């Protein structure tokens, strides 16, 4: 999923747990994360933390933005992230190697080229678009992270593809209890185009 700026102290935030979403359009399903047990706080505090989070994100060029809901003081954070999954065949003179990696686009472009002749053919590269929303859930009184993965043409990733791409540290828990770790949901009204209340 990539790294995001940690919330600055003095408001430490436990890493979110997992939710899940797929699909496109208003009725897309989203993955949602929620915090561990005791970290409750109100919407104002959430907004304050988001402001700091966004400020830090801007400093490190991490792409998070704040969106305010129409006719409301409420809002949420969002970020879009593209990841390229190249399936490339790299031949050096003599040896050939098949490399399959999943790199953020910026890193893929920075791969140094060997002096020796390197023929690189990209077969079936796929660009995957991840969209993240961080909303405040007044039901749980915690922030909730929603994410959605799709191809550039809008087709959602299959569930198993999403699960394969989950960070290693969550994978064990995920594979043991996939449906407990992940919640498939429609994006709640807060983050849909129309104004919403929680």
């Amino acid at each position, binding site marked *: 999923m990539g790294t995001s700026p940690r919330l600055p102290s003095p408001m430490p935030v436990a890493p979110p747990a997992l939710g899940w979403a*797929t*699909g*496109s*359009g*208003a*009725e*897309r*399903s989203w993955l949602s994360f929620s915090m561990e047990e005791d970290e409750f706080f109100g919407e104002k505090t959430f907004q304050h933390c988001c402001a700091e989070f966004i400020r830090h994100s801007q400093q490190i060029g991490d792409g998070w933005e704040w969106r305010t809901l129409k006719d409301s003081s409420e809002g949420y954070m969002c970020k879009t992230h593209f990841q390229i999954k190249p399936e490339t065949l790299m031949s050096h003179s003599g040896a050939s190697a098949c490399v399959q990696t999943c790199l953020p686009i910026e890193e893929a472009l920075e791969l140094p080229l060997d002096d020796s002749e390197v023929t690189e053919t990209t077969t079936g590269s796929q660009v995957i678009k991840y969209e993240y929303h961080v909303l405040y859930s*007044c*039901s*749980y*009184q915690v922030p909730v992270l929603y994410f959605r993965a799709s191809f550039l043409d*809008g*087709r*959602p990733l299959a*569930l198993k593809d999403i699960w394969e791409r989950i960070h290693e540290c969550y994978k064990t828990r995920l594979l043991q209890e996939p*449906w*407990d770790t*992940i*919640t*498939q*949901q*429609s994006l*709640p*009204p807060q983050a*849909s*185009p*129309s*104004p*919403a*209340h*929680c």
Partner: protein
Amino acid sequence: MTDDKDVLRDVWFGRIPTCFTLYQDEITEREAEPYYLLLPRVSYLTLVTDKVKKHFQKVMRQEDISEIWFEYEGTPLKWHYPIGLLFDLLASSSALPWNITVHFKSFPEKDLLHCPSKDAIEAHFMSCVKEADALKHKSQVINEMQKKDHKQLWMGLQNDRFDQFWAINRKLMEYPAEENGFRYIPFRIYQTTTERPFIQKLFRPVAADGQLHTLGDLLKDVCPSAVAPEDGEKKNQVMIHGIEPMLETPLQWLSEHLSYPDNFLHISIIPQPTD
């Protein structure tokens, strides 16, 4: 109170007579007869339509079948909404049976979630139950339960077992003796005339002076356009489980007796029929 327990049973055993017809453009090897079924109001479409699927797949070739989905008068039906909510919101002013069209092609990605398995329905159901308890009890009751209790809620719903379900669910309907109700009431208000899918807000069942809030109080606060002005004409029906509760009904009572198995009050605001 015996009367109140009857309400729980009436809600649980509510049924909607439904006629399922295969979409005319689906490819069949022979003519597909419509399929009639009494749908439980409190359940979910993909949980109770295995027989519907089998009935139509009998007349189709394997290669023409992909994920089943349902539609009413052009509107794809969200399987993750309870059946009774879908009917009240979309079809309650029409004559019975409820005519649903069955599709096996062209899944509307933009309108519907996929339902890959019964596990997906269970996960969605349990996630709603947990959210409701977060509102009612700061999740204390649901978290104190064992996993087998959670499983019993789901199995009770899946197998239409009222006693099995309520043996556990009654604990989710309790509140401390010193309080007059839950912390907040789990509810969602739906209207087809607005863009927003539903309204959900924090709302307490008891006012600061100890008075019980009513359904009318809730609507005035979160959805004032739905309620007619004092002397004005009634524009809308406020419907839960196919009935219009009196606006004076205490919200706490509604939450305890008219919630769906997911512990939410799913309330439909629909235009007053003109007949």
